[in-house]
């Protein structure tokens, strides 16, 4: 179902623990990195790979915000909404992005390029406002900087 390279990475991770189940989150992240999201078939594959039930996988997938149980756009944006960011530019950043992309929270652009999500504190409070773009952190943002970042991945 997955290329050898992906399976090998999962096997290496599984070897770090006395029980295969402990590899759950890191293995799901490898699969998500390959597939973009954790579709039901992938969840069943992970269950077989770890020797657990599909429900055990599903209850982990549905718990964590950074595991995607629904399809995402090609690029995923997480804007920090917690206090220090909120008071230091995140409100303006959020308004700019919803306007520019034409989506609301958790929305994906019609062309499938961007999904816009809110994140809780990204530990960038001293360099607010902050966001993740495809998992990489960007800080001290202003609207021009955000436009540049999105332009660079388009």
């Amino acid at each position, binding site marked *: 179902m997955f290329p050898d390279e992906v399976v090998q990475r999962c096997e290496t991770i599984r070897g770090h623990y006395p029980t295969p189940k*402990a590899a759950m989150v890191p293995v799901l992240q490898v699969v998500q990195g390959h597939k973009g999201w954790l579709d039901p078939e992938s969840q069943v594959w992970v269950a077989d790979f770890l020797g657990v039930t599909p429900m055990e996988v599903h209850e982990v997938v549905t718990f964590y915000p*950074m595991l995607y149980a629904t399809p995402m756009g090609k690029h995923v944006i997480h804007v920090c909404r917690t206090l*220090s960011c909120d008071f230091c530019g995140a409100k303006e950043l959020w308004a700019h992005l919803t306007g520019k992309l034409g989506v609301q929270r958790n929305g994906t652009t019609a062309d499938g390029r961007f999904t816009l999500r809110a994140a809780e504190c990204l530990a960038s*409070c001293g360099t607010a406002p902050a966001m993740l773009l495809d998992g990489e*952190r960007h800080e001290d943002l202003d609207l021009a900087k955000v436009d540049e970042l999105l332009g660079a991945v388009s």
Partner: protein
Amino acid sequence: MTLKHSKVLSARFDKENSQALAGYREDGGYETFLSVIKQKQPDEVIDIVKRSGLHGRGGAGFSTGTKWSFVPKQTDKPIYLCVNGDESEPGTFKDRQVLEFDPHQLLEGVGITCFAVRAKVCYVYLRVEFAKGIRAVQHAIDEAYAAGLFGQDIDGSGFSLDVHLHTGAGAYICGEETSLLNSIEGARPYPRNKPPFPAVEGLWGCPTVINNVETIANVPHILKHGAEWHAGLGHPEDPGSRLWCVSGHVAKPGWFELETGYPLQELIDGPCGGIRGGKQLKAIIPGGSSSKVLLPDEVRKVTMDTPGIRALGSSLGSAGIIVLDEDTDMVDACLNLMKFYAHESCGQCTPCREGTPWIVKILQRFMDGEGKASDLDLLLDLAENIEGRTVCALADGAMWPLTSIVIKFRHEFEAKIAANQPVGVA
């Protein structure tokens, strides 16, 4: 007591390529680890850390050496160390500096700690949002293995250690130590009831020590310079050098390494350049968002140490200081934080799962011009029925900012009620 800027944890942060093993060893790195595992007994190390006065830097502030001493001396089970790098407490961004700029300092601490508590395996738990820190730590682990600093029979000492990086997936609750254990085990990460404490029954039912990143990063320095050296830094009852994080409405936000005992007002006025735009201070949340808010009068007299902050009924927590200026709408600030806790409640305990969204709804009513006088009592009543009635401390941590804001800034809520347009009036 002398008050000073210190450079212990951050001493190497500015160096070029500070993450690399070569530079770390040129600066004497891992010498302490290698001498400890060859020349000391585990209990000697625990005793030194106990006497150093080091307290945990994750939020709860428990004595580190005492925590280590709870691990059973005689056990047939494997012993584990977990490093808590799930740093998610609003206002806190200190651990990521260690991870990104000096990961070997952390890993040397991991080595010494594992030796002290007789652990043979360590999991370094990092939140997945720390992509840069994850790369730095994984590279450092690989370098340490390649140099024979981790693995079997390290430098002929007979001591063996495996270190693995484990990633979280975006849940604040996993910073709670027993939730972190369930997260590593691959279960839904609900916190566990205590007792049994993790030192007795942790990962897979085995003795486990869980320490914060900054706590572990202190360990090599204490073993190198001695317990007395550390005990002499800052406030005698809560000694040490800490990475203070200041954010919000200050001219120069950022992290600052200072010994404990530093006057909070001096930190704001000095290194932080005062309140942004020449405004007046309205309030400070001193120890990450899960601490009680302080008023300007309190800020003026408090020193940054556990006895000083406790005397005002608040806590030092994770040392994440959020500064709010005179223009801040405290109801809005409170709502922002309560949305955080409502989102991050794991859902295991009813008071927290149902109570935190209810509080969000009530606060939203105030913001929408529909708040009522009875809502203020309802908020405090809810808080009383949530705090202390859940498995973990997330709900307690949510109620401390809530109740302190409602009590200390009641007039702001009342002003919103007074400004409400009566229904039916044009």
